[in-house]
């Protein structure tokens, strides 16, 4: 659920990078962090272990454009992919406005991809949210490796559902299509947001002002 701050005229969106362990979620964020203008981004907080595995999550705040007078801010998160960290994943996933599911294209990771995708659906369901309701795109990552499954099989495995998601062949280590995927999920997100919320362009919402009680009223109280 996006956070709208009428006072500071800000809208905050939360995008979560989800996927199995070591599929490249943190690499995605690192690349985005490198490419974004430092004036428009915060610092990438990465709680990683010595083995470069995400411990809690990565967090990258981005200040962005103005939409109807509101400054949009994006917060990008990753989740720890390891199976045992499901509670952390549920926590990070809470109130997510958009999801980028990062699949690992290697043959031996197909099962983990499927499990992770199921886990995503289950964790959303626990928050009474269906995946179809959340803007989501698929990344088929590590396309530069040699032992990879063809995209149509990954589509069959991950995207054979009623609502077809956009898919991107990605090499997150070089940044190929990283922004394309982020751009796509942001487009869906902003489009959905603009449809749901008619943001007032100029008129500020009414503000409740406490009325000082007259002396007589005060006496009654």
């Amino acid at each position, binding site marked *: 659920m996006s956070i709208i701050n009428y006072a500071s005229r800000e809208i905050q969106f939360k995008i979560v990078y989800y996927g199995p362990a070591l599929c490249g979620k943190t690499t995605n964020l690192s690349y985005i962090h490198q490419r974004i203008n430092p004036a428009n981004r915060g610092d990438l907080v990465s709680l990683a272990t010595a083995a470069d595995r995400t411990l809690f999550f990565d*967090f990258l705040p981005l200040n962005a454009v103005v939409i109807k007078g509101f400054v949009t801010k994006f917060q990008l998160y990753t989740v720890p992919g390891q199976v045992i960290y499901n509670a952390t994943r549920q926590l990070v996933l809470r109130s997510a406005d958009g999801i980028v599911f990062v699949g690992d294209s290697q043959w031996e990771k197909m099962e983990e991809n499927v499990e992770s995708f199921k886990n995503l659906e289950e964790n959303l369901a626990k928050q009474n949210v269906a995946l179809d309701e959340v803007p989501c795109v698929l990344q088929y990552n590590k396309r530069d490796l040699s032992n990879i499954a063809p995209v*149509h099989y990954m589509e069959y*495995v991950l995207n054979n559902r009623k*609502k077809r998601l956009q898919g991107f*062949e990605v090499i997150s280590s070089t940044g190929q*299509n990283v*922004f394309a995927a982020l751009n796509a999920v942001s487009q869906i997100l902003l*489009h959905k947001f603009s449809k749901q919320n008619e943001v007032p362009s100029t008129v500020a919402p009414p503000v409740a002002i406490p009325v000082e009680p007259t002396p007589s009223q005060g006496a009654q109280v």
Partner: protein
Amino acid sequence: MTPPSDALKPKLLLVPGVTAAETAEKKAPVSAVPAGAKISLGLRPVMQNMPSFQLHRTAESVAPEARIELPLALVESQLSSGRIAIPVRLFQEALPTDYKELLVVDAVESPVLLPLQEVLKNLSPGLLKMRDDQVSEEVAEGFETPFSIKAAEDAKRFSERAADAETPVASAAPAVEAAKTPEVKPPEAAKAPEIKAPEVAKASEVKLPEAPKAPEAKQPELTKVPELKPLEVAKVTETKQPEQAVQAKQIEIAKAPEAKEPQVAKAPEVKQPELPKLEFKLPIAPKPETAVELAAPKIEPKPEARIEPALKLKVETPNELTAKTVAVPTKPAPEQKSDVNTNAKAAVEQANALPGVAASVVIFEDGLNLAGKLSDDVQAGGLCAMAPTILQRINRHTVGTKYGPLVSMTLSWNDAQLSFFMTGTVCLAALHSEPVLPAETHRQLAAKTAELSRIYTQPGEKHVDH
């Protein structure tokens, strides 16, 4: 009378947006496989995929032309799970007579996992059929996002590289193709997946309005956690160079015909993976800390300075530190960044480069090792895990004293000394290379720990916006 436990209750999840009909449909998928149909697989690749405990001999003893036929329905039903397992008895039955003794059926009858690539190679393309009733995501074409320009820039950059790489590498192309996994043609019924590449042409037209600098845009909480490894900084600078070069060529690219662009459905750069790799990995500069460490003269610990008691506990507080006389470090101190541009790994590297420090490790208060490692000979892992708790206990008693909060604790043995620095929930353990840490090193380690403590979120604070 107690209510039944939750474990006995049925676990039902109500997923909004999923109707009962749809759920029922999922449970009973319509199989397109005729009864009795078989799939023929190469036996050798199947055997090569099996663990050694399931084989009497190596898979190389299987003739290359040997094949095995398995029920297609069984395979097809598992295709979507990314894992195809065949009951071992069934597999044994299906094995050609010459190879039946090759298989070992273990006590638990572990199923045989089939290699997906071999299955897909021999699978009828029509079986990977996508749902007919799929609806595509409503895409807001032309809807500006903060990432549109970057996406367009990247698309241009990578497509240009792919185009450039195509001509000179033409002779090597067949080898690259051969090295790839056999490409299985997508099923005809299921159209090629719509992998959308970002539109390149938009980049020149689109201009995003600049965000006004609101006073809130500073995000004070972010100052707590700035982080970039030195390695990453190097990467950033390197990646920007080719990018600028690409931007300089943009006018020419825009005029050029788009004939070179590969398939629309696929991202154009997929077939040229090695180029981007080179760009990012080659120019990594040596870390300055490493250079300093190598150049530094080795300091031998003085035997007479050792403390005789088997274990001596020494607790230091900030006031005590400032009162100490400063020993002149013989080793040049590593370059300290004024900002908080470091993380646990970098902190460990910098700490290790300090004079008097042999090795260091960063630990969370719960004993979890975050970065760094002490020598295996020391076997101080358990001690390091326990140290934060001890420090916190001692600190509880020192807070009330005139010395203020605890900064460090040093444990001394006959042959080694280990200092622990702790701030908040982060603890830095430093193994001495000399009996007493130089005061400057001590000060820097304390500062480094405080810095790490600011970087890593405290457990009491909120991690996520709710």
